[in-house]
């Protein structure tokens, strides 16, 4: 039904029509009409952030943990430019977001008005699509299209730039089903002939491996279910990228762990030595492939992706299948079952025997300590004490992120939120608030490094104001750990600007915002402290003082192939054929 209303009201109406319950934002002159409408309704909750970048990361956390699009609202000029990092992050990791930005009035555009910026120009390369709406009559349809584009095909962030006069003016509101979305209809069904060929390859493969990515998560929980059925049915080993953790359970019998630069030894060697690689919704990122010319040299490669531009971008594949992972898996399972559920079981058993020898290397082994908390130990204890709970994990970016991926286990999709493609330090804390807003009764932990965490620490106020009991688990090594590691390994131990100087007293900082602050430095106290953190009904800043110069292993030095990966400091002994401690 078409109704007359102001542009500002249309925004709220459209959000309601798309079942949006939460908007993350920050007001300013150019979005005041929308804030006025927010004030006069109770259906949509507005979360006031302390910086617009955090609004986008919160919306990302909300989106990743729910599977629904996240919504953010920022003002013109600096509000929009502050959103750019978050938008780029969401684009790289294919997270559906709808971001509204205010803009100066249409008659002011181009005059360098107060808080004017060319927002659509600036955000064009960091959104899936964006619009400058100059006519209130077109606003409703634009918002409906925005939801369609953000959530269909390969998901991504979209931005709608709204001049202030368009918000004030009255126009016709048309409902979502009246919106024209015909020409953007990405292909979701895979080619049946190609899928049949995939099944044939699966039937004869001697050394197969599933290599899964964020596309499985984005395809929805159904895709993860189908993946589990196919993996468990075939008995093929499976590894995943950082983005895909949780699609197949970490406790599953075919699970090899994460692959890539800091992936597990068995996962990377399986990738290197396989004869059939089945890539489901991953994109051959450079952190996965290492040196591309030596990447999995003897395998037939199958790549299933909803985005045609991901095919043959980095690695040439033998069998591309364009489509939604869930749809393709459904068809593949159907065909595989219809053809008699065949695999080359004897060869696959031999393959597993080989993989088991790699597993015995125990690549995540590290030298423990009774005096200092090893970061790996801290995460092992965190895992042991939280894994059976209704738990969501976010991370910042760096060593702690890789250790979290290695030492924490994820049983379900949408439980793990991390900045993969862009590697945005400062992502995890606001993302954890976004997750907690969506799941108020769950345990939400941000595994952080102190340096990343400081990048968006202003959101402490947001957490307090909206009573989100997020747990900030900071592995504090007083270093920019990953930078320091690279400087140690590759830049002659010249530690240029890679230490955290002048850190705050995190306990006092926490208390000043009404949080609980904790500091732990003795491994013997760790378990009790973690339990105290979990049981505290409110946000906790957990300052875990860890070993300062611990390196993150295994590691494929950049530009090296998978089979030249390094294991802790004993890598040399291993390469010589010796036993690993």
């Amino acid at each position: 039904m078409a109704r007359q209303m102001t542009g500002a009201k249309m925004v709220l109406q459209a959000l309601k029509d798309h079942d949006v319950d939460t908007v993350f934002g920050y007001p300013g002159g150019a979005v005041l009409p929308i804030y006025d409408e927010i004030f006069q309704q109770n259906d949509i909750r507005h979360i006031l952030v302390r910086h617009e970048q955090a609004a986008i990361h919160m919306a990302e956390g909300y989106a990743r943990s729910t599977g629904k699009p996240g919504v953010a609202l920022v003002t013109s000029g600096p509000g929009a430019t502050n959103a750019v990092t978050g938008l780029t992050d969401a684009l790289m990791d294919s997270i559906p977001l709808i971001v509204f930005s205010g803009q100066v009035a249409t008659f002011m555009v181009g005059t360098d008005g107060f808080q004017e910026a060319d927002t659509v120009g600036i955000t064009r390369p960091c959104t899936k699509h964006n619009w400058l709406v100059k006519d209130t009559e077109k606003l409703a349809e634009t918002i409906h299209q925005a939801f369609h584009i953000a959530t269909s095909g390969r998901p991504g962030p979209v931005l709608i730039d709204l001049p202030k006069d368009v918000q004030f003016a009255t126009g016709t509101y048309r409902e979502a089903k009246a919106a024209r979305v015909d020409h953007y209809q990405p292909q979701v069904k895979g080619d049946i002939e190609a899928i049949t060929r995939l099944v044939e390859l699966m039937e004869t493969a001697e050394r197969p491996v599933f290599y899964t990515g964020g596309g499985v998560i984005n395809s929805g929980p159904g895709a993860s279910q189908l993946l589990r059925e196919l993996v468990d049915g075939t008995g093929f080993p499976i590894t995943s990228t950082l983005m895909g953790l949780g699609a197949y359970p970490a406790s599953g019998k075919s699970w090899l762990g994460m692959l890539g630069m800091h992936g597990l030894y068995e996962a990377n060697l399986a990738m290197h030595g396989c004869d059939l690689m089945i890539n489901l919704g991953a994109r051959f990122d450079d952190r996965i492939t290492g040196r591309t010319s030596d990447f999995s040299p003897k395998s037939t490669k199958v790549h299933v992706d909803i985005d045609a531009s991901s095919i043959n971008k980095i690695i040439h594949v033998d069998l591309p299948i364009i489509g939604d992972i869930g749809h393709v898996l459904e068809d593949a399972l159907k065909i595989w079952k219809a053809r008699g559920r065949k695999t080359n079981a004897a060869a696959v058993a031999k393959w597993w025997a080989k993989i088991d020898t790699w597993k015995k290397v125990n690549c995540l082994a590290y030298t423990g300590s009774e005096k200092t908390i090893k970061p790996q130990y801290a995460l092992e204890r965190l895992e042991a004490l939280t894994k059976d709970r209704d738990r969501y994990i976010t991370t910042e970016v760096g060593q702690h992120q890789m250790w979290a991926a290695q030492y924490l286990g994820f049983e379900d999709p949408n439980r793990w939120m991390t900045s993969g493609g862009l590697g945005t330090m400062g992502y995890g804390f606001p993302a954890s608030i976004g997750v907690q807003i969506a799941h108020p009764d769950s345990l939400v932990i941000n595994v952080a490094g102190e340096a990343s965490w400081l990048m968006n620490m202003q959101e402490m106020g947001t957490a307090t104001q909206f009573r989100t009991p997020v747990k900030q688990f900071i592995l504090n090594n007083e270093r920019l750990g990953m930078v320091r590691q690279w400087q140690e390994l590759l830049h002659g131990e010249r530690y240029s600007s890679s230490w955290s100087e002048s850190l705050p007293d995190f306990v006092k900082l926490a208390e000043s915002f009404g949080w609980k602050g904790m500091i732990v430095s003795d491994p013997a106290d760790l378990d009790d402290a973690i339990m105290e953190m979990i049981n505290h009904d409110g946000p906790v800043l957990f300052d875990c003082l860890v070993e300062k110069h611990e390196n993150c292993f295994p590691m494929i030095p950049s530009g090296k192939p998978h089979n030249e990966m390094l294991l802790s400091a004993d890598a040399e002994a291993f390469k010589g054929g010796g036993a690993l401690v």
Partner: protein
Amino acid sequence: MSALKIKKGASSHSVYDLRDSHSQVESSHTLAVIVDNEAGALARVIGLFSGRGYNIDSLTVAEVDHKGHLSRITVVTRGTESVIDQIKAQLGRIVPVHEVKDLTVEGTPVERELALLKVAGTGDKRVEALRLADIFRANVVDSTLESFVFEITGPSAKIDAFADLMRPLGLMEVARTGVAALSRGV
């Protein structure tokens, strides 16, 4: 850190050095991109080329379907086969792009370009310029006692050749439209 067998401070191990050194032959492709005629559509296409480091040898754009609000962008680009495939796939995922046609793989397309050339001179040079214009079937669209403006259409190579001949005869300025192209047959 002897465990690493990497020379300390060695920068050759940079992660940025991952590109395949086995680059194949580059070839020129003419692409026709049908887009919604809306603000920013051209910027998206151009931004894609500059952002991802692709070449543009020529680019033309104009509305071709007023009722359907569709424009046709003709891009002449260069790259290895895999780069060309990547360009087409990347163009294809721009939301307002309806269709990407690679006219070069569909067979040699009909390609035409229009150019205006201002040639100044008197005496023999002026006569020679006019004679060559006649040979190239260029039209005189403006003339003064000291100058001509020639209009010429044809494949880019023909225009290049004509401009080269005009240079010693007093070529002052060239304006070219870029290539418009259609595939042959139906």
